[in-house]
C-alpha cells in the first residue's frame, strides 16, 4: 500500500520529488478578507481568524499542467484559486520568521479549484476535494531563482482574456510569517506544498474553458476544464 502521487511535476532542486501533501490557506489575501466585509464579525464566524486557516488538498485532487479538470455534474461553474505554492525543502517545525525561507526548496503555481461555497464555517469537503481539483506546476523553481516571494504578480487568463491580476505583496501573512505561524502547530515535511492563498473575487470558469495562471518567474500553469460527460 505505498503512497502514490498521481502527479509528476518536474523538480530539480531538493527534495527532488513532491510528497503529494498539499495544504491550502483560506483568507490570506487581503482582497479575500475584504470581500467578506463585516460578515467576519457576524455569526457564524463571530470574529476574524486568528491562526492561519488551512485545509488539505488530498492526493486525488493533484493533477499536472496540461491536464483536463472535470467539472462535476450539476456544478455550473468552479472557482479558480490562483496561488503561489511553497515547496518545503527540509523539515520545518516551529521555524522563525527570520529563517523561514531557508526551509523552502522552491516555488510552483497551484490552482486551488473549488465549487463556489459559503459560508466558510464548516463547508463540505465536496467543494475542494474533487478528483483533479488541484492542478500544480508547471515545474518547481528553485528558491534562489526568486528574489522576493512577497512581490510576485499573479495573472489569470481564461480563454486568453485577463480575468484576475493580484500580487503576493497583498498577503495578510507574507510568506515567511505564514510559514512561522503554520509550523508553530504542524511540521511541514520535504516535498510538502503550502499554497499561500488566493485573491478575491476568484475567476469562475465553465466546461470548455482554458485557464492559464502566470506568476512572475514561475512560468504558466495551463489547464482546460471539461464537463462530467465529456
Amino acid at each position, binding site marked *: *500500500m*505505498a*503512497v*502514490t502521487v498521481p502527479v509528476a511535476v518536474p523538480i530539480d532542486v531538493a527534495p527532488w520529488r513532491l*510528497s503529494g*501533501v498539499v*495544504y491550502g490557506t*483560506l*483568507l490570506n489575501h487581503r482582497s479575500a478578507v475584504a470581500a467578506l466585509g463585516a460578515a467576519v464579525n457576524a455569526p*457564524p*464566524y*463571530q*470574529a476574524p*481568524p*486568528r*491562526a*492561519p*486557516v*488551512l*485545509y*488539505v488538498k*488530498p*492526493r*486525488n*485532487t493533484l493533477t499536472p499542467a496540461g491536464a483536463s479538470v472535470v467539472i*462535476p455534474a450539476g456544478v455550473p461553474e468552479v472557482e479558480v484559486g490562483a496561488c503561489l505554492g511553497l515547496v518545503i525543502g527540509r523539515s520545518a*517545525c*516551529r521555524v522563525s520568521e527570520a529563517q523561514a525561507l531557508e526551509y523552502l526548496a522552491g516555488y510552483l503555481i497551484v490552482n486551488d479549484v473549488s465549487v463556489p461555497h459559503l459560508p*466558510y*464555517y*464548516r*463547508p*463540505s*469537503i*465536496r467543494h475542494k*476535494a*474533487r*478528483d483533479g481539483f488541484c492542478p500544480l506546476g508547471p515545474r518547481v523553481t528553485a528558491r534562489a531563482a526568486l528574489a522576493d516571494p512577497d512581490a510576485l504578480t499573479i495573472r489569470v487568463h481564461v480563454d486568453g482574456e485577463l480575468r484576475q491580476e493580484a500580487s503576493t505583496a497583498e498577503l495578510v501573512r507574507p510568506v515567511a510569517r505564514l510559514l512561522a505561524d503554520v509550523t508553530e*502547530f*504542524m*511540521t*511541514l*515535511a520535504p516535498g*510538502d506544498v503550502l499554497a499561500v492563498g488566493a485573491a478575491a473575487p476568484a475567476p469562475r470558469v465553465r466546461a470548455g474553458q482554458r485557464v492559464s495562471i502566470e506568476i512572475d518567474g514561475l512560468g504558466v500553469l495551463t489547464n482546460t476544464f471539461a464537463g462530467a460527460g465529456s
Partner: protein
Amino acid sequence: MMRARVAYAGALHGAEPAQLADGRSGVRLADGRVLAEEEVVWLPPFEAGTIIALGLNYAAHARELALQAQEEPLVFLKGPGALLGHRGTTRRPAGVKFMHYECELAVVIGRSARSVRRGEALQHVAGYCIANDYAIRDYLENWYRPNLRAKNRDGATVLGPWLVDAADVPDPGNLGLRTFVNGRLTQQGNTRDLISDVPALIEYLSSFMTLAAGDVILTGTPEGVSNVEAGDEVACEIDGLGRLLNTLVGDDAFGIA
C-alpha cells in the same frame, strides 16, 4: 491477521503478535526475532495516504457538544505529520484548558473506490485499526471547522497498534470502543451507534472523490471525551483490534520554554 510496522535495531520491520517465553505479549518481526512490546518503536501500521476524519458521527456525542445533526457527514482532512504510532508521546501545550482524546474505528482502504454503492463498499476495505484523534478545543475557530490548529497537530493522531485484516472483522458495525485514562474507564461506545456507518461513509466519499489503497477513514468518536493532562496515559480499545496506548507530555519534552 494482525500486522504492525515497528522500528528495531536500525531498520523498519513488519511484525505480528507473539507471546514471549514469560507470557508477556510482544511482537515477532518478519525476520523471526521475538521482542517485548516496549523494545520496539511502533509506527502507524500502514503507510497512510489521504487521512479522512468524521466529526459528530455518533448521535450521543453530537448531543454532548450541543450540535444538530447535519444533512451530510461532517468530514475533514488531515495531514500525515499528525500521525503517531502505538506507545508514542503526544504534546499537550502549556496553558490549554481542554485537550481531549477521541477513540475511533479507523477504516483502511485496500482497493481504489469511485462511485461505490453501499452493498459493495466493504470489498474496498483492507482492514481496520484503532485511532486516537486528539483535539484541543481552545484553538477551535469558526473558519473551516475543525481548523487544523485544533485538529491537525503534530503527533496528535495515534494509529495502531495493528492493522487487522478486514476478513478478521466480520461486522465493523458492532464493535465496542473504550477509552481508559490512567486505567479509569472514561469513554464507551459501539460502532452500531454510528450515524453514518462504514459502508455509508465509503459510498458517500467515493461519490465525489476517488479513494485509493492506504487512504484511511477515522469514523468519529462516541460520547465521553474529557480533558487530559501531561503525564496521563490514554488507552483506547476496540473489540478485536487491540489496545492503543499513548502518553501526554508537556512542552519541556520538546524544548519549549
